[in-house]
């Protein structure tokens, strides 16, 4: 009884594994690219804000008001574009 019953479950298991692997590999690309697309939207603004924040902090500390704000705002903008560039690059790979 147990011998005759033994074979079908293994076949079924193989089938399930096959189906699963298909499902997972399909889903993988989908979820990855989707998350990355949504990442772009706020990314530039956040990097600019961080750059500006660091600039204001340094300027307040050393009392050199406009210099570091300008420098770090530009660096922040560059960081924002870098973020977006990275997202675009990783999307292209998929």
């Amino acid at each position, binding site marked *: 009884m147990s011998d005759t019953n033994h074979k079908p479950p293994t076949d079924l298991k193989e089938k399930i594994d096959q189906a699963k692997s298909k499902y997972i590999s399909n889903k993988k690309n989908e979820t990855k690219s989707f*998350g990355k697309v*949504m990442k772009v939207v706020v990314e530039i603004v956040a990097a600019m804000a961080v*750059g500006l924040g660091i600039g204001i902090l340094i300027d307040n500390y050393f009392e050199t008001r406009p210099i570091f704000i300008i420098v770090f705002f530009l660096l922040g903008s560059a*960081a924002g574009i870098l973020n977006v560039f990275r997202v675009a690059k990783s999307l292209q790979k998929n």
Partner: protein
Amino acid sequence: MAADNPIDPIHQFEISKIAPIQIGGVDISFTNSSLFMVFAISAVFLLFTLGLSKKSIIPNRMQMLSEMSYNFIANMLRDQVGDQGRAYFPFIFSLFLFIFFCNFIGLIPYTFTVTSHLIVTFAFAALIFLAVTIIGFVKNGLGYLRIFYPSGIPVYLAPLIVPIEIISYLSKPISLSVRLCANMLAGHSILKIFAGFTVMLGFLGFAPLVFLVVLYALETLIAALQAYIFTILTCIYLNDALHPDH
């Protein structure tokens, strides 16, 4: 001012104290925000206790729902982080469920949307950011600092690239928290504004009402989507910390 006008789209975001508590000069009152956090956690707790109370092979709806949400996050974590991410599953799963339920409870009229306050989402994002940074340093030692200096960059470009990379890294918690908060805030404000139009226009109010129904469907999508995005980005940051070389 706001009391004069019965249609006030911002009123829904006001925090009111339910039980004022002061400990050592610090205000830790139980507010409506806290109340709806409790509701969200109770909903999660209810879903899983009811869903998993009868562990049948052919699942009923509640069991199906809880198992599906488990599989969903488990797959996501495996796709993004790999097997090393398994240790962080409880945190990621709780995070997803909490934000998901907060967003959805906020869609019910007369409720409060916890995630529409920047301080709540920023607290999450800052915690995740700190945790991910600590995990990165624990797993990779000082070698984790390499993420600020990508390989293949000439040395004379380092003074430019390193600050840019640091700013890019620091912007992560801000973009993470602002995205969730802004989506919930904007969506709920627009819903209230169009509901106000419906009331003000009287008979002609059916036009914004139709729009409102469509918008509500969109908001439902956004509520789920933003919880998903918050979680998947947490996974991506975690992956960056565990595998800084890519």
